[in-house]
């Protein structure tokens, strides 16, 4: 027990009979049925290597999936216009249209340049599922993508007969710039705010490099990462300067990177206007530039759709998130806390006695007395007819609209809707007349 808590204990402020009873009940509780030792043993043996990493992965594929993805890397897709279910783990590589980093795609086709680097003769060594088999005669195919000709150099970097330092060779000045300063990008399309990696196909020693990202930003790192802050299509330029003699080779690939805008996620919600034991809260998507929406409540319920209705039957602050996705798969998240409470949440008593004796003669949840936000407080009879309604902190004295008074022993349901800055909070319970 902490010192702070011991101090509280001395003052007698903490832990009444209720807490003591709970602790005692839990102390003698037998515990729940847990999986047997064998499953634990296999976990120890490496089934869950990494522990926390293993766990977070399970959270991602579990029902809490979308929640776990939010805040981490937002996925993107550059190969398909179809909306991809955000719950599925997303492979960044879908058809080889972006990556050519052989570390990332080990199965990637390896291209080898034989002999003179200016020679366009290439041979396929192994074939990946992502690359069509290319013959030298397939020139139009090679030109199809801006960076495709860079790819044929990848194998050279990997190949056994790698040239140690091509920049030092005399002919570096003569070979086409497409090869002398060949480079590529790990994604050709991404969302605003996503980091994109740039690298030379053959990292060279004894050179200085300068990357121009086309958005006014530059880098002199050999393999920089860059975040584009605005949507658009960008020309990328790499300048390579040979240190020995200052020779500069510059290569530009036009329209290499396309950045898609993120949607603006937002939603509103409505609570019931009458007393409910299990209030349904309906949400409405108000996002801009979004083609699909996914709802998450308390990190566990997930629904798709423009609007959604949830039973918020647990007492407390419910965290509701809306993940909005654009047609390109860019995402953003809106989040609000929605409070649903019983009489304890708003300081409502369980009973009152409108008999004029000056004690508990009227009923008003005490939380409303100094509330700054607008609210509606309603009391209903058994049939659901509203017998009292106010937007002022005015107590119900037990008077009924038809005349007469609430009878002793009868129960009345009530509700309070508080209009918060973001949206409404809801409280509902029952009061008994004594």
């Amino acid at each position, binding site marked *: 027990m*902490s010192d*702070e*808590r011991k101090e509280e204990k001395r003052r007698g402020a903490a832990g*009444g*009979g*209720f*807490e*003591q*009873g*709970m*602790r005692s*009940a*839990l102390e003698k*509780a*037998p*515990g*729940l*049925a*847990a*999986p*047997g*030792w*064998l*499953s*634990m*043993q296999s*976990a*120890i043996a490496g089934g*869950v290597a990494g*522990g*926390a990493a*293993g*766990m*977070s992965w399970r*959270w991602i594929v*579990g029902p*809490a999936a979308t*929640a*776990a993805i939010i*805040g981490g890397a937002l996925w993107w897709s550059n190969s398909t216009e179809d909306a991809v279910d955000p719950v599925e783990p997303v492979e960044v590589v879908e058809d080889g249209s972006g990556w050519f980093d052989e570390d990332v795609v080990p199965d990637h086709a390896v291209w080898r340049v034989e002999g003179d680097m200016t020679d366009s003769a290439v041979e396929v060594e192994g074939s990946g599922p992502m690359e069509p088999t290319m013959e030298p005669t397939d020139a139009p195919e090679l030109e199809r993508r801006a960076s495709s000709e860079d790819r044929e150099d990848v194998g050279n970097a990997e190949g056994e007969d790698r040239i140690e330092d091509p920049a030092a060779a005399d002919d570096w000045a003569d070979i086409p710039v497409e090869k002398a300063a060949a480079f590529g990008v790990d994604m050709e399309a991404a969302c605003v705010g996503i980091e994109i990696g740039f690298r030379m196909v053959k990292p060279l020693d004894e050179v200085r490099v300068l990357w121009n990202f086309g958005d006014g930003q530059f880098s002199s790192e050999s393999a920089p990462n860059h975040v584009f802050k605005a949507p658009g299509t960008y020309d990328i330029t790499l300048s390579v300067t040979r240190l020995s003699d200052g020779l500069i080779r510059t290569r530009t690939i036009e329209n290499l990177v396309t950045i898609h805008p993120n949607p603006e996620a937002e939603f509103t919600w409505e609570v019931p206007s009458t007393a409910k034991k299990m209030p349904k809260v309906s949400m409405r998507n108000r996002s801009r530039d979004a083609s699909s929406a996914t709802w998450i409540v*308390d*990190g*566990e319920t997930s629904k798709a759709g423009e609007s959604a209705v949830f039973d918020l*039957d*647990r*007492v*407390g*602050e*419910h*965290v509701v*998130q809306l993940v909005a996705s654009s047609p390109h798969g860019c995402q953003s998240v809106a*989040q609000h*806390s929605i409070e649903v*409470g*019983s009489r*304890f*949440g708003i*300081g409502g008593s369980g009973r009152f006695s409108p008999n004029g004796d000056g004690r508990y003669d009227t009923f008003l949840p005490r939380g409303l*007395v*100094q509330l700054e936000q607008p609210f509606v407080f309603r009391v209903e009879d058994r049939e659901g007819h509203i017998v009292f309604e106010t937007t002022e902190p005015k107590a119900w004295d037990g008077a009924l609209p038809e005349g007469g008074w609430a009878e002793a022993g009868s129960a009345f349901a009530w509700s309070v809707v508080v209009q918060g800055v973001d949206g409404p909070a809801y409280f509902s319970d029952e009061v008994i007349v004594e």
Partner: protein
Amino acid sequence: MGQPIVDRFVISPSNPPDPEQIRAWVQSAQAGESEGQRHIYETYAGRMLLAIRRYIPGEQEALDVLQDGFLKVFRNVGGYTFRGSFEGWMRRIMVNMAIDALRASRQLQFVGESEAMLDVLSERVEEENEPEWASLGQQDILEAMDRLTPMYRAVFNLYAIEGYGHREISIQLGISEGTSKSNYAKARRNLRDLLRQKLREQ
């Protein structure tokens, strides 16, 4: 031949083991021996799972935390110095991992509330006619806790059961001390109400 799959579930023994016995198991586990690990696991898994379930709403998610928690226990068992109970040492690890899991799944986000509300809500409830709280069953307690949001149950469990102070809770959960206190007051009243109902039905 692989081992036959016997007892797919373990249930903790009803009587706590002898302290000397526990010491021997812990020392065995500290030496990296599977034998000690197995005894510790089979003795405490059920009670640790109960502790985790007080925080985590889902069964499957709680089992994940249990497994990762025991991995952490066995990795760090060398750091246990036999001061304080071993079960308490383990439970602290489990509770921390449960809170981490809630945070990772974004179930602990919270927006603060006004201090004015706090005054209204922190006055003491009359403690007359206290029911026999200690006779509550674990299932009743879990069912009642399942009726609270993750933040409410985390605050309640950390304060009432684990014995943390509100300052520690505010740091651990990333909320203000005032929020911790008002959440505690509300969670406590709701739980009392629900559990009183359960005891009446018995």
